[in-house]
């Protein structure tokens, strides 16, 4: 574990240097332990692949205090903490209209499109963290055959609900935004809803599965 100041109001706790489930577990343990403290001096906690950023009020907490807090949690053996895992199934319509890059991905993988759909919807994914836009979950666990580069030219507009992949990552665009990933489908679910008590459908540490649905089911279930 390496703790470095990121700014005059934040510390970056680095727990590893690679994307792995081991590092993810260490991140989750520290993140949840910090959340449980419910310390009002901490303003934001941000888990990522192998780090946790802690933003605090520098007028009420010093870097030394924040560092000691993290070290104590680590010493208490936070890595052993058990937690329930949330499993979320996301229906996806892989219609050409929603997945304009499906053909690209199939060509890149040298497999038929239906096999891309089959591979994408049979894997189990892990939410490593949320970032990029509100509610955007970075999913690990994409089958290797589907690893495809980002688009050379990002799109200016990707509609909310679009299911996409890039490199070893998978995700769902939660809000209308620009995007450089390969678009392969769309979910009728609302992935981000700021007007609810749980604004993001996916949380760090969740397990995610995609299930293929046809266009009629999509049209019948799409959430405004």
């Amino acid at each position, binding site marked *: 574990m390496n703790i470095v100041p990121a700014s005059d109001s934040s510390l970056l706790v680095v727990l590893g240097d690679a994307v792995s489930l081991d590092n993810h577990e260490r991140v989750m343990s520290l993140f949840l332990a910090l959340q449980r403290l419910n310390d009002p001096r901490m303003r934001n906690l941000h888990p*990522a692949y192998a780090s946790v950023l802690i933003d605090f009020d520098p007028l009420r907490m010093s870097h030394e205090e924040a560092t000691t807090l993290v070290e104590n949690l680590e010493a208490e053996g936070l890595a052993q903490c058990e937690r329930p895992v949330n499993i979320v199934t996301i229906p996806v319509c892989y219609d050409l209209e929603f997945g304009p890059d499906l053909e690209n991905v199939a060509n890149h993988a040298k497999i038929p499109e239906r096999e891309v759909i089959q591979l994408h919807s049979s894997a189990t994914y892990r939410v490593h963290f949320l970032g990029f836009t509100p509610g955007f979950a970075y999913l690990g666990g994409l089958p290797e055959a589907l690893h495809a580069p980002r688009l050379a030219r990002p799109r200016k507009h990707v509609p909310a609900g679009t299911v996409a992949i890039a490199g070893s990552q998978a995700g769902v665009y939660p809000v209308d935004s620009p995007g450089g990933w390969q678009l392969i489908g769309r979910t009728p679910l609302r992935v981000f809803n700021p007007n609810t008590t749980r604004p993001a459908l996916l949380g760090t540490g969740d397990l995610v599965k995609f299930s293929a649905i046809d266009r009629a089911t999509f049209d019948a279930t799409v959430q405004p």
Partner: protein
Amino acid sequence: MAIHVIQPGPLTTVQDLGRYGYSHLGISPGGAADPLAMRVANLLVGNPENAATLEMTLAGATLEFDEESIVALTGGECDCRIGGETAPMWQAVRVLARKVLTCGGLKTGARLYLAFQGGLDVYPIMGSASTSLAGHFGGVEGRGLRKGDLLSVRKGSNLRVRTLMPEAAQELYPRGLVRVTRGAQHDWFGPEAFDALLSSPYTVSEESNRSGLRLQGEPIPSRVRSQLLTEGVSLGAIQVPHNGQPIILFVDQQTTGGYPKIANVISADMHHVGQLRPHELVRFAEVTIPEAVRLLREQEQWLKHIFQH
């Protein structure tokens, strides 16, 4: 009390001091780009400092008031008029019913704040009225104001206007100097990189907004070629992409990033970043973290003492 938006200006949004506690959901704090000017505006009209205000960008809006109200304008220097007569900045002013407030282009700075006595009546989302442009929520439908929008102002009772000490506003801007501490990946950079960052001025590019300020100037060389694993980024982080041209991550930033951060703007100078305009020159100076915290503490003290009693 209602305010009619006659002209919105280039980008006018509802902002308070932002929403905290949601960055793990990819939601940046947002809030006023110049929180100091915004807080002063609220305090002048007697509001709590976190009341919802309007933030105008580079040029102001034209608004019609349907009832008499007390407002305050702060931030970048701007020619503002109420019914044709000059409306002074940095003090509480009365707008009579049916009068129109017209704010021109900003002569200095990038952002103008308008506080209304009572505060804008905006339903808070995740504890804040601030507009999240990326998330399409908060403020008015999660977007900048449009012509024809109707804003409502809360009734303020027992709110007493305040007066700023002479010269207090001048102490805020501009210095042309932004102070920084070392960033999370400062050890990816050698002395030559810090030389470039700290000894030459950078120009604020036109592609700058609330998410980030792109700077142009002496390229900053990195010693490390490897890819940084995406991680959470702090407000005001100065990240260096492969072309060596630094970017200051700002209030509406993406909450994660994969470029190394050489430095980070100190909390006490964040308001100054919010007033940097395109084409403006900015210089950086390094301070230690204890120094940065001391400067923030002094700034908070200063804010308590700039009003006349």
